[in-house]
């Protein structure tokens, strides 16, 4: 119970934990899809507070982590061009491409800028009509609508020197890919709350039914996670598999209709490679043909990139929940936040970074944390 006093409402947390304990009779493996949730879980030691039968498996829901190396390398090449102002969210600065990162590109003279919002990048394009402004459009369903709106606005305002390097990913096809994997141990999902704030619940009932898995929409705060786990375990123990919204204060079943309409207008669904995992069919968005002029890959014709993934990095297995970060030989030795091999160690939402930041002492003095295989 060493972490529980840090909870916003420790009494409520104790109550939820007691309920989970009294409900569980068998081992269960749940996957939290979102990197923000992984961060909360590790930071608060929620996985250690839960009864041994409940194992949390960390999913692929960190957009920074799953952006393919090839796209990072394209970003680095575009950002190095003298005519380009390359705009990105801050999380991407130190994600390693083949041999360097955006931080290094700036040190070498590239004009790399960090923006808070994609609309800030559009403003930079308006202020610099003689330069090409490229925005690095990564992220899940939460980030895609802002980026879609920015491209829509660029076209509406006739801004021609703006383009988007797109690498958007979608959660439901990733859930399907995880369930189809022959090594899959996942028996239920804590779905990412803010993704559902945009998308609603519409895509989940079919997945829950087809794979017989409960899907509980869950928020990001410690109590949200405990409540998500509680509802999931109740379903599992009863042999049920429905979609349940444990985050109603931010998620309406219909999502955000205006955002969905904009996604439909600006993007189209495409197959997308996930770093460390490979291509997942229908798992991404790209710009629809009528917005092709705003596609940085098309505009800059980046080619001839020699992409090399470090052989030691096992982030792909971490992202699929097949390996816990500290079970990787490079973890905390060759691979640290200072010298990351892969994006899962760089991003604040990456599972490896979360373990490194909050579990380092445990790693040094003990064997790997308990893994409770589910059979």
């Amino acid at each position, binding site marked *: 119970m060493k972490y529980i006093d840090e909870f916003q409402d420790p009494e409520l947390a104790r109550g939820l934990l007691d309920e989970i304990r009294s409900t569980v009779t068998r081992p269960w493996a749940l996957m939290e899809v979102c990197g923000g949730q992984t961060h909360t879980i590790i930071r608060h030691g929620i996985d250690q507070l839960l009864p041994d039968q409940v194992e949390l498996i960390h999913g692929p829901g960190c957009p920074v982590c799953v952006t393919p190396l090839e796209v990072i390398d394209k970003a680095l090449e575009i950002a190095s061009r003298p005519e380009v102002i390359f705009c990105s969210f801050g999380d991407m*600065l130190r994600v390693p491409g083949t041999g360097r990162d955006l*931080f290094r590109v700036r040190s070498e003279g590239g004009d790399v800028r960090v923006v*808070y*919002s994609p609309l800030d990048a559009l403003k930079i394009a308006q202020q610099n009509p003689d330069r090409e402004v490229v925005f690095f459009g990564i992220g899940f369903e939460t*980030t895609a609508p802002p980026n879609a*709106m920015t491209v829509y606005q660029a076209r509406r305002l006739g801004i021609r020197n703006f383009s988007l390097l797109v690498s958007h990913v979608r959660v439901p096809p990733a859930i399907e890919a995880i369930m189809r994997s022959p090594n899959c141990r996942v028996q239920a999902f804590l779905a990412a709350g803010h993704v559902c704030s945009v998308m609603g619940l519409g895509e989940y009932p079919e997945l829950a039914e087809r794979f017989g898995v409960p899907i509980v929409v869950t928020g990001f705060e410690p109590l949200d996670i405990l409540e998500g786990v509680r509802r999931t375990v109740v379903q599992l123990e009863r042999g049920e598999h429905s979609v349940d919204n444990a985050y109603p204060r931010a998620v309406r079943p219909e999502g955000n209709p205006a955002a969905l309409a*904009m996604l439909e207008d600006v993007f189209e669904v495409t197959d997308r490679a996930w770093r460390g995992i490979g291509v997942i069919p229908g798992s991404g968005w790209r710009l629809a043909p009528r917005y092709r002029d705003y596609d940085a890959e098309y505009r800059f014709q980046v080619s001839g990139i020699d992409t090399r993934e470090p052989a030691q990095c096992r982030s792909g297995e971490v992202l699929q929940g097949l390996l816990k970060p500290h079970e990787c030989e490079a973890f905390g030795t060759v691979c640290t936040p200072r010298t990351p091999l892969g994006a899962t160690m760089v991003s604040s939402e990456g599972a490896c970074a979360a373990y490194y930041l909050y579990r380092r002492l445990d790693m040094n003095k003990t064997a790997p944390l308990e893994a409770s295989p589910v059979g």
Partner: protein
Amino acid sequence: MCLAVPGRVLEIEERDGTRMATVDFGGVVKEACLEYLPDLQVGEYAIVHVGFALQKLDEESARQTLELFTQLGMLQEEFGDPWEMAAEAGGLPLPGAAEASQEARQ
């Protein structure tokens, strides 16, 4: 970046044909686009992600979340200077320091 933060709408104005708001995130004030929540009014709370209001939130939930995020230093992670944070994490010198901090303040 995945984090979406609750904020309170202080002002709303039309800019370049787009509905924009000034939003207070527990003391940090930033702009947000309201095109996806066109009914949001001054004084109301919403979850804001990368400068876009995505879903309305009741005041009590928003206040609790903001309090928690402040305690955990997550507002600093979200709104702090990303170049400084990246340099610190990597043990690296800051490239174009003055310019970078100016961007972060914008």
